């Protein structure tokens, strides 16, 4: 894999389906510390990819790099989404291109109500789900629409973060531990939703500590360890491969 593929034309790495989101030789730093160490992987249109690994493996860092956050700094590598060079964009441009990140700490904006948090997502084009549709998915949010977002319960905040991402018209949804803090019934609910939006053609990358659950949902899995990729393959493979699970996922 020393030859740089031509992503702009939808070329792929070793896979048959065309790559939709391509990460190529990504190297990301927090200040001086080298966190994501030269990783490459592909995500295909409409699939769900599970990005797994221990605490501190660099999962969040990878997602943040793809979403083009200021921190970490990407010092090398390319990211292409649907022939568009994300690595040349800043986070708002990436978002307008169709990337949505549900951050691990939810990042509900203080000072705004639930409703305003969603409206905020609908200011810049392209707009996705309507407020009503989000409330339909999470009736809880509808009940709390006038409440300040940060006073929501932990799980409600998680719903808001996901709802806010869906309120934009997205191509790729990056979920950083979406099940965390959610009641099991709600997790079921979200899982269903993810399957629905998958059918609508939205591509999803999901980071989750509840690896089994994620793998059951996902088509493919990528496992990270100390900033490098140690596995890239189908989700079922991981579920079957005891050794792999024991070594990198401890399950």
């Amino acid at each position: 894999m020393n030859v740089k593929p031509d992503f702009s034309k939808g070329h792929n790495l070793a896979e048959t389906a065309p790559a939709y989101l391509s990460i190529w030789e990504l190297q990301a730093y927090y200040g001086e510390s080298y966190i994501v160490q030269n990783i490459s992987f592909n995500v295909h249109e409409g699939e769900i990819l599970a990005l797994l690994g221990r605490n501190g493996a660099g999962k969040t860092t990878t997602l943040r790099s793809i979403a083009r956050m200021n921190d970490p700094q990407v010092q090398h590598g390319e990211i292409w989404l649907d022939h568009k060079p994300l690595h040349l964009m800043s986070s708002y441009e990436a978002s307008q291109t169709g990337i949505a990140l549900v951050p691990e700490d939810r990042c509900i904006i203080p000072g705004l109500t639930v409703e305003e948090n969603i409206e905020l997502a609908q200011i810049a084009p392209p707009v996705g789900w309507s407020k009503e549709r989000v409330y339909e998915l999470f009736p809880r949010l509808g009940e709390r629409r006038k409440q300040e977002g940060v006073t929501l319960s932990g799980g409600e905040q998680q719903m808001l973060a996901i709802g806010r991402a869906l309120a934009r018209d997205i191509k790729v949804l990056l979920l950083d531990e979406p099940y965390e803090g959610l009641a099991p019934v709600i997790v079921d609910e979200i899982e269903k939703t993810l399957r629905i939006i998958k059918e609508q053609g939205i591509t999803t990358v999901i980071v989750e500590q509840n690896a089994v659950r994620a793998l059951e949902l996902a088509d493919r899995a990528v496992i990270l360890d100390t900033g490098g990729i140690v596995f890239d393959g189908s989700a079922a493979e991981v579920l079957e491969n005891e050794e792999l699970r024991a070594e990198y996922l401890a399950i």
Partner: protein
Amino acid sequence: MDVILPQILNGLDKGSAYALIALGLTLIFGTLGVVNFAHGALFMIGAFCSVSLSRILNLSYVTEDPTQTDFLGKPLKVETPYLEAWFGPEFGGALIDWSVPLAILFSIPIMILVGLVMERGLIKHFYKRPHADQILVTFGLAIILQELVRGIYGANPIQTPAPDMFRGSIDFGAMLGFDPNVIIYPYWRMIYFFFSAVVIGGVFAFLQFTTFGMVVRAGMADRETVGLLGINIDRRFTIMFAIAAVVAGWAGVMYAPINAPNYHMGMDFLVLSFVVVVVGGMGSLPGAVAAGFLLGILESFASMTAVKEILDGIDQIIIYLVAIIILLTRPRGLMGKKGVMED
């Protein structure tokens, strides 16, 4: 009543100056979260826009008048403004006379430019830095701006009168049925009050009836996330900064006829405007405006002899005393938002 009323009027116009300055400051400080010690300098630059325009309109050519002598006994140099020469003393003179109101327009591009350069070139890099760093860098900038103005215009105050027709005063008392000559009020101060009311209303409307305000507030609370939602927050911050600069500049432009501008007028207002903003409550525009008028009126009352007889010198400390009382009784000032600049 004839003692109280004039002081309310005085308080209103003092208050409108405070409110206008605090409004601009709170856009930058309470909304963008930058402790902008250069805000006073923006006010001062505004005032010097008036001075400059009046200087420009007064550009003159020089002739010698042999019939008179100057202080060294040489023929006197007489200056005639080009405007008068070109348009005749009638119209040309009127233009010169109207330099302050014209400066409102004149100042817009200048203040926007100053605001843009300041934000793009400097403040942009300081949003995430500690407040202490913001203080130092904007204080440094304020000093530089101030010194530049001093270098160009000198340290002396420069009279910049209002148009002739607004120079007089109106006998309010007589209109309301009091004795004449008791409650009088200069036209220009009245104009200043209405002007600031319009500007304040305009800014409110802009932030209230557009989503702009919400976005900027959100961006201030969490830039990253707002960026994640596809919003170019940097551009909006820049616009906000430019608006604040224009508001500060206008406060200065219109203030020029009230008190002759000098290069350190910004610093004179600086501390006071911070007090006003904080007393109003961080992040609250109505708070800043309310605090401005409140403190203006209280200050006026405190300067009444009857009040000073109760406590000698109260007029010197009233603002600070009231600020302390308000901040102790209301944790976040009059209408402060929770969590804004509380750590």
